[in-house]
């Protein structure tokens, strides 16, 4: 799972227009998963720590042996489900930069999906912020894409290398404003 992949030729999405090319697929920096991974590890070791003292736990001795095993299986299934949901939320919270628009696919609470997009021609202002200890150490931050006043703004939160992303979006927006054909990534790389 690459956090940032340049020019992912094999990536397509459902609402992709004909001849539309995906330039960048961005996700939140993987380090943003640290809090839930630590929580998950703590949840996994809770039974290992507390089972030797099972006699002292209020309800544990009242359960039958099969009930105790079932409860343990349930505990680990719940932990697995929690981890699955959190990794899927990270994996599918993507920002797509194509040659004509910017898309923000967001999962809120996993069962609610929010897809926001802005045409590069309608972009008015792009800013990025990077602050705090973790963001400085791991080089990630937020990029805010502002569109016309009545339109929804797009926030690329906790993306790696926000300065470069900022530069890419402003360059693409400038080209779109001029209605020029957008250069490929290879062309960008060969420019001085």
């Amino acid at each position, binding site marked *: *799972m690459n956090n940032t992949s340049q020019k992912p030729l094999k*990536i*397509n*999405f*459902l*609402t992709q227009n004909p001849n539309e090319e995906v330039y960048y697929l961005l996700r939140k920096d993987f380090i943003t998963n640290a809090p839930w991974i630590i929580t998950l590890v703590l949840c996994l070791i809770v039974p290992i720590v507390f089972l030797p003292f099972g006699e002292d736990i209020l309800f544990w001795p*009242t*359960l*039958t042996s*099969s*009930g105790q095993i*079932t409860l343990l*299986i*349930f505990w680990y*299934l*719940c932990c*697995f*489900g929690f981890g*699955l*949901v959190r*990794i*899927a939320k990270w*994996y*599918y919270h*993507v920002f797509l930069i194509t040659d004509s628009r910017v898309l923000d*696919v967001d*999962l809120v609470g*996993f*069962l609610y*999906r929010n897809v926001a997009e802005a045409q590069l021609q309608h972009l008015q202002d792009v800013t990025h912020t990077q602050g705090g200890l973790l963001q400085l150490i791991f080089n990630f931050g937020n990029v805010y894409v502002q569109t016309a006043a009545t339109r929804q703004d797009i926030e690329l939160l906790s993306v790696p290398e926000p300065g470069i992303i900022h530069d890419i979006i402003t360059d693409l927006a400038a080209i779109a404003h001029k209605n020029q054909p957008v250069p490929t990534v290879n062309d960008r790389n060969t420019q001085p």
Partner: protein
Amino acid sequence: MIEIPNLNQLIENLSLGSLAVILEKWGVIAFSVLLLIFSVLILKQMTLLDQFLPTPGGKLLKRVALAFTIAIILLLLASIFLT
């Protein structure tokens, strides 16, 4: 008068211990059903997301979600028939 077979015996045998076992079994079944609903919703959302943005990682996550659902179905069946 209609006689219900073994009803008197059932009432005589009914104690707090046996009630706890019955409650434990139905508690496990109820929790399994809730977990199953949750896993099916996850699987459905994964399928929709994989349709929106098909990637190898997304397909892997969908398979894992399917395995999670199957595991819960097996647990539900085990809790119904084996306890």
